């Protein structure tokens, strides 16, 4: 334990460089003789490329080279892959179509790269890109993915009906039987709107080829540099693993979009070797809109069956998930194993059946975005619960309480085995935090001002730290989902922690240092966290799915166990005591019940001088752990949202938002609160503001901040947060993960609140002022007709 240990609210170590402008992001890398790359991109959603003429571009000032898709193909650099294989219900494998770095023949979404221009400066490269003449033969595009089978076909020969996989989970016959005997059935059509991630740092890659060593260094905006290196070497043939170093330096937010390996960084590695100079490519924001993997985009029909006492007896969900033009790295897992497995929510449901159809369309690839599948599941379950309560004339709190799971562990019918939480306790705390008893008075006060006030609930559960490796492997994952940690204790007692996770806002440099401080009493300033460089950290799986705390932190914990054991053995030897009697307290190793003690740094030094080690002990103090969890973790919470709707304009203002979560043990409450705030903003953004729009020709209409509404400071309230801290039994830290909860739980709370305010259940996200105004008009029309 220490003042900076687990549970301490300490300021972040990493902040100093960020608040002084000293952060080192990929675009801040400037290499000698560095050239600039710009991509020529398809203006069409679907077209055949009939010719490419680079002659004029090659004559432009400053131009070094123009690279085409055929060049990359001829170099043997291969197709991008989806790393998670799933099967249709008839046992056939998913239909993965070839995903070229730059397809020389066909383009399938607006923004797909066609050629890469390398020039002395970015401005010159942009000028020259415009001079590359590409002739296209335009083809009709598929954007209405609900009618995927009607065509046009995205990948003829691979998926002629555009259906990638017709996947299922659960027992359909048993679920149908439950519906047959049900007293009530509630049905809903639910759309989960397509989102564009918009990490504030656009993607970027700097590639440097060292001819002397035939070695490539790639700086890139990645959440998982080791996976990037693995995939680029094992599948894409960019370079063998030992000849490729991937560095993800400071990364300006990811939210999923920087998990994947994209065409641009592969092309940059090829280009650096070809032109013999370092190459930098940095996306502009419109490129980010067009090419970062998008998120969500589900069309769902759901129905829930209840008995006469309003207990859920069955749940049936049919979803069509749009994966876009190509299968991105984890695109198959997101709408299946990360979605349908959470359809039990916080509720006792004996029978669940989900059918998910994954389909192609002529749009940007879609993959995991903050929450990844779990927001979609939560939205279906929690919209359903609120709507059912209204239909039954029950309070939404009462209906939820009637169905909450109380006994743990709890096995759902959709694979998950929930660890302990307290769903009633979360609801109790949320009601208290928002002053639920005072709500009627607040509503009356709003009405006096001519405003409509509504309140909405969302009781979510999610699954983090996806694991164990053997289980995910059996479900089709191409990788294991363990994490590594290496603890290097220096002779003076300072500590370096190497982790295979990657921090791009998650505060690992502080919270991981706190885990070390907690153990040895060293100040966090004496602990360095190293990550994001395949030359420093041997291997790791990166950061996504709220895995860094539960999996990465636990790996550190396990490695610390080994360091502690060795330090204690050494201290015992030096103080002529039994290792079992050594206690670590305030940075000292003490013999229990005596006044014998050694300072931490004295023991560390002794390990390195090696003048007096126990028999058989090797010198040094450095340990490694590869930690593979035994289960997912299950954070849960209840969110309550209060809105005021202006009936004249349809504008919704969030006037009160409370989030009460169980994240297990909390390492740094300040950091956890920050993660919740950010997640809530993204969830509220999805509910109120954000929506990706394609027209019928597949043109992306929301390709800049002029048209894609990002949440801004005045769109959001200050949030009221609280926690229950229920230890997670499946990892040694007892943590559950907090990175995605806000984005998972918020959307249904907001929409449930608005629909409560305006008195109709039919409202799509984002609930723009016009949509809300129209919904209000429809209720008035309906009332007038009665």
């Amino acid at each position, binding site marked *: 334990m220490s003042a900076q240990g687990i549970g301490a609210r300490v300021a972040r170590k990493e902040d100093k460089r960020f608040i002084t402008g000293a952060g080192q992001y990929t675009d801040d890398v400037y290499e000698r003789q560095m050239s600039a790359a710009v991509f020529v991109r398809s203006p069409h959603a679907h077209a055949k490329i009939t010719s490419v003429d680079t002659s004029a571009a090659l004559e432009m000032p400053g131009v070094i080279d123009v690279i085409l898709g055929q060049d990359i193909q001829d170099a043997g650099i291969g197709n991008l892959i989806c790393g998670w294989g799933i099967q249709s219900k008839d046992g056939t494998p998913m239909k993965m179509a070839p995903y070229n770095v730059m397809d020389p023949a066909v383009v399938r979404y607006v923004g797909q790269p066609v050629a890469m221009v390398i020039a002395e400066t970015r401005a010159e490269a*942009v*000028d020259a890109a415009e001079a590359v003449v590409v002739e296209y033969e335009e083809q009709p595009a598929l954007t209405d993915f609900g009618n995927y089978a009607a065509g046009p076909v995205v990948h003829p020969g691979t998926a002629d009906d555009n259906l990638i996989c017709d996947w299922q989970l659960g027992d359909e016959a048993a679920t149908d039987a439950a519906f047959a005997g049900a007293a009530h059935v509630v049905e809903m059509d639910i759309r989960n709107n397509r989102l564009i991630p918009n990490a504030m740092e656009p993607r970027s890659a700097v590639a440097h080829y060292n001819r002397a060593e035939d070695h490539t260094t790639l700086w890139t905006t990645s959440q998982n540099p080791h996976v990037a290196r693995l995939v680029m070497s094992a599948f894409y043939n960019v370079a063998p693993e030992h000849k490729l170093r991937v560095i993800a330096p400071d990364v300006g937010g990811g939210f999923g979009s920087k998990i994947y390996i994209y065409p641009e960084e592969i092309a940059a590695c090829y280009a650096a070797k070809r032109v013999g100079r370092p190459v930098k490519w940095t996306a502009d924001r419109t490129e980010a809109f067009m090419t970062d993997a998008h998120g969500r985009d589900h069309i769902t029909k759901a129905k829930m069956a209840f008995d006469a006492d309003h207990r859920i007896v069955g749940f049936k969900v049919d979803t069509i998930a749009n994966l876009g033009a190509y299968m991105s790295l984890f695109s198959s897992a997101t709408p299946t194993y990360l979605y349908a497995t959470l359809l039990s929510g916080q509720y006792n449901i004996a029978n669940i059946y989900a059918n998910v159809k994954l389909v192609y369309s002529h749009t940007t690839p879609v993959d995991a975005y903050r929450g990844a599948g779990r927001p979609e599941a939560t939205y279906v379950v929690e919209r359903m619960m609120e709507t059912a309560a209204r239909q039954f004339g029950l309070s939404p709190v009462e209906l939820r309480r009637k169905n909450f799971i109380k006994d743990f562990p709890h096995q759902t019918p959709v694979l998950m085995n929930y660890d302990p939480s307290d769903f009633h306790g979360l609801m109790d705390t949320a009601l208290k935090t928002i002053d639920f008893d005072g709500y009627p008075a607040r509503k009356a006060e709003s009405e006096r001002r001519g405003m409509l006030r509504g309140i909405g609930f969302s009781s979510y559960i999610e699954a983090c730290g996806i694991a164990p490796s053997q289980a995910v492997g059996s479900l089709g994952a191409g990788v294991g989902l363990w994490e590594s940690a290496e603890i290097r204790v220096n002779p003076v007692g300072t500590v370096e922690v190497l982790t295979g996770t990657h921090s791009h806002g998650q505060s690992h440099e502080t919270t991981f240092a706190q885990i070390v401080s907690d153990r040895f009493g060293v100040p966090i300033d004496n602990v360095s966290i190293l990550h994001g460089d395949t030359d420093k950290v041997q291997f790791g799986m990166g950061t996504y799915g709220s895995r860094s705390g539960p999996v990465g932190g636990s790996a550190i914990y396990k490695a610390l166990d080994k360091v502690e054991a060795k330090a204690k053995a050494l201290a015992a030897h030096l103080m002529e005591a039994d290792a079992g009697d050594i206690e670590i307290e305030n940075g000292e190793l003490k013999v229990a019940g005596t006044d014998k003690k050694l300072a931490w740094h004295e023991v560390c030094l002794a390990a390195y001088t090696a003048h007096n080690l126990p028999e058989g002990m090797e010198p040094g103090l450095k340990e490694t752990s590869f930690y593979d969890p035994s289960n997912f973790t299950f954070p849960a919470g209840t969110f309550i949202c209060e809105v005021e709707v202006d009936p*004249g*304009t349809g504008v919704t203002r969030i006037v009160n938002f409370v989030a009460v979560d169980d994240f297990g043990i909390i390492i740094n409450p300040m950091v956890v609160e920050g993660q919740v705030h950010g997640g809530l903003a993204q969830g509220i953004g999805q509910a109120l*503001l954000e929506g990706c729009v394609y027209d019928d020709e597949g043109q992306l209409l929301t390709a800049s*901040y002029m048209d894609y509404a990002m949440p801004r400071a005045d769109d959001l309230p200050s949030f009221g947060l609280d926690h229950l801290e229920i230890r997670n039994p499946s990892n040694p830290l007892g943590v559950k993960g907090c990175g995605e909860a806000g984005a998972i739980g918020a959307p249904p709370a907001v929409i449930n609140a608005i629909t409560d305010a305006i008195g109709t259940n039919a409202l799509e996200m984002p609930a723009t002022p016009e949509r809300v*105004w129209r919904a209000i008009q429809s209720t008035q029309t309906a009332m007038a007709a009665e």
Partner: protein
Amino acid sequence: MYNTTYYAATSLADAAAKIAADGDAKFLSGGQTLLATMKQRLAAPTMLIDLTKLPELKGISVEGDRLVIGAATKHAQVASDATVKGAIPSLAGLAATIGDPAVRNMGTMGGSLANNDPAADYPAAAMALDAIITTSKGEYKATDFFTGIFETALDEDEIIVKISYEIPKKAAYEKFRNPASRYSLCSVFAAEVSGGPRIAVTGSGNEGVFRVPAMEEALTRGWTADAVTSVKIDPETMLSDMHGSAEYRAHLVAVLAGRAVAKAG
């Protein structure tokens, strides 16, 4: 951005001579729209003639019943200037809603009016406050100045020098922002000037900023919100896009006009 040449004009005559010599040159004021457009490669002037250093385009003063503002005055100055706040607080308030603080530190009134973006704010004030726009060649009434979306009566080589607004008996601006761009989706400037009541709308008209004679006429019979909210706006005259249909915008005009009238008092 395409290649271009930057030139800081030293006088009106100098600026006029430069543009006469190069037909593909453009005047640059704050640049908050023009530079953004050039970055998207949607405009490619061979030369940018910077007008912001011209002394003729500076200054804020009250002249009789009018407030006169130099064309190179930045939005931030209009928003914070004591003379503007004293004479037409609603105009200062309008300026404080344009773009964001950083944009307001560069963007100018003349630049905004000359660009006549259908979602810009100043055109509504100019129309409602019977503005007179003085240029290097003459002067225009606001109603003659705005001729269509991104269209004005200005010649290519004509420079706005100053803008004079009638100081109204009362006035207010109600702005409804596009949730993405934060430009006006539908905003209404309501004023009572010597010529009578004025209702000017920006962000919604399919021909740009416009006045609503039916509302103005209704207000002559009594300055009440109800007088304007009951006036129906024809959706056929409205812009329509993914942020707001014509029907919704037509509805907003009435709602916001009512609120502006009420706010003006």
